[in-house]
């Protein structure tokens, strides 16, 4: 599948969009936004559903997601599952989790990515693995995941 190059404009737009939680100025809690402006999931929702509430506007993240998936060889559903598993390992309760808790866990995961060097290059942009999975996750179609 041909995916257009990820231009600076696209990356900037992505970075300034609430769809990508780990935008510059927001990753790691050093400042920036306090949290996503998405529709919150109901209290007690699963991690998957809470995550779904954070995945907005696939169109905005598609460029990153498609290129990440093309180079990593994984599927959007697979990336989503990996992300949910990772969040689950981070002591979130898979069956009863609010959107805020998932957002905070994503912040922590992204911070940990930066500290440990868990990043990928997407068209040369340095993107944390969690960020990349989050963009891919927005393209997931698996209805069973939420």
């Amino acid at each position, binding site marked *: 599948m041909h995916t257009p190059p990820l231009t600076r404009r696209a*990356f900037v737009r992505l970075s300034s969009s609430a769809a990508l939680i780990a935008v510059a100025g927001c990753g*790691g809690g*050093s400042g920036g936004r306090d949290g996503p402006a998405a529709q919150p999931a109901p209290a007690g929702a699963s991690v998957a559903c809470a995550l779904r509430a954070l995945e907005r506007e696939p169109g905005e993240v598609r460029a990153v997601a498609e290129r990440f998936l093309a180079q990593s060889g994984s599927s959007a559903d697979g990336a989503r599952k990996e992300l949910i598993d990772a969040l689950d390992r981070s002591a979130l309760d898979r069956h009863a989790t609010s959107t805020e808790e998932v957002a905070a866990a994503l912040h922590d995961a992204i911070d940990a990515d930066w500290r440990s060097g868990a990043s990928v290059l997407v068209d040369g942009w340095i993107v944390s693995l969690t960020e990349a999975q989050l963009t891919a996750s927005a393209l997931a179609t698996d209805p069973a995941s939420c």
Partner: protein
Amino acid sequence: MLIGAQDLVEVGPVDVCIVGGGAAGITLARSFVGTRWRVLLLESGGPSFDARTHALYDTPVIGTDYPIEASRLRYFGGTTNHWAGQSRPLDPIDFEERTWIPHSGWPIGHGDLEPWLDDAHTVCGLGPPEYDPHRWSTTLGPDFLTGSPTLESRIFQLSTPIVRFAAAYGDELAGADNVLVALGANASELLSDQRGQQITGVRVRWFDSDHTAEPRALAYVLACGAIENARLLLASNAVRPAGIGNDFDNVGRYFMEHPAYRAQRMLATPLFPSRGLDWTPSAEPDPPAVVIRAIGPSDAAVRRHELLRSMLIFYGRDDALGDEDADVAETEASVRAGLWRDDPSPTREVAATSIFEQAPNPDSRIRLSEQRDALGNRKAELDWQLGEIDRDSVYRSTILIGEELARLGLARTQLRPWVSLFERPLLPGVGNHHIGTTRMSATSATGVVNRNCRVHDVDNLYVAGSSIFPTGGIANPTMNLVAFALRLADHIKQDAL
């Protein structure tokens, strides 16, 4: 006193003969002013630039492309006639053997140079030798990298008003009773005894004459810059075919620079510091100093990730946007039009340049060319080589810096395609810093000069300048080589005369 080269035939033996009147040579000569020792400074050029003399520096470049023409100047004051005055001491880590960098490590430590740093700062027109970012926070703003496990701020000072060594110190030398400065005096060969272990004179040539002079001294110092220092040793091959001090084929090898790359594009966030980080000098009134800040991987990070040292400097708005100009213009237009409601303080583009330490590389070298200059001397030939270790460090350091700036919420980074894909050979910019061709070492098998800057196995020949540096760190060389020249002068006075 100033004399012409032709007057040298009248000059009797002196105590110290210094070849080259740039930063190192002038500093050395000044150290002897008013002492009981007689000093002769041989300088190829005259008081100002002259194309015919400068052409003696012509050097074929056969390795990585190198803008050699303006990277040194051949007249009194040497390359300080157009240096930029940016200065910082070598750091302790620079002297250490780092297991991941072949041929790293000095036979001395930072403490062996420290006693001369104060005076070197004064000579170079700098403020006090203080480089702790907190010390300069009133000028540069707080150190926003405090606590980062990966990055640290690096302070540099600027010579102010910039010290051009001949203009600043030429009169002092000309007025000194015990110092002779011979202008237009081109050292073309060192003369030695039959074993090549004692220098007995310097053959000097000058334009428009077939005559030569052979001034004699007890001690000799080469201070002609890293290319010419090596060339002179190699060309002095009448007794030893490989040249003086070259029994182990080290002379001319390990030529290093500070390669500079536009390795990344950076989007700075609103958190990116608005002052103290652009590469714009800031003046500090008390004590007077002009300082600038770069950032780079900390020593701990360099060790943890086994990197060469590097630093990143920012130049404000990126004006070199090339084919993505339109993207950014559109982005900015949409911001101005208020279309980016999500983010009222959007990102901006900053230009950044990475400057790297180059790994010592024996294949990166100065040789004698078959071509000859106008005085009949064989020219130097430059074969500058960057290795896999350099390329790898650029790649990994750029990512490391990008990750930490993202973690801190300061900026997002895109590697340029050649960095991320290794698409084509690195074509770096340069610092005009010539380093390493007569490296300091513990033994003659591994280098050219010993810990006192004396050529191994030659009793009375010394080298001054950054050619003695076994590694280049990320500091500009001149203030450091001035400190080494002061140290060498003290050594010669105490032990060699």
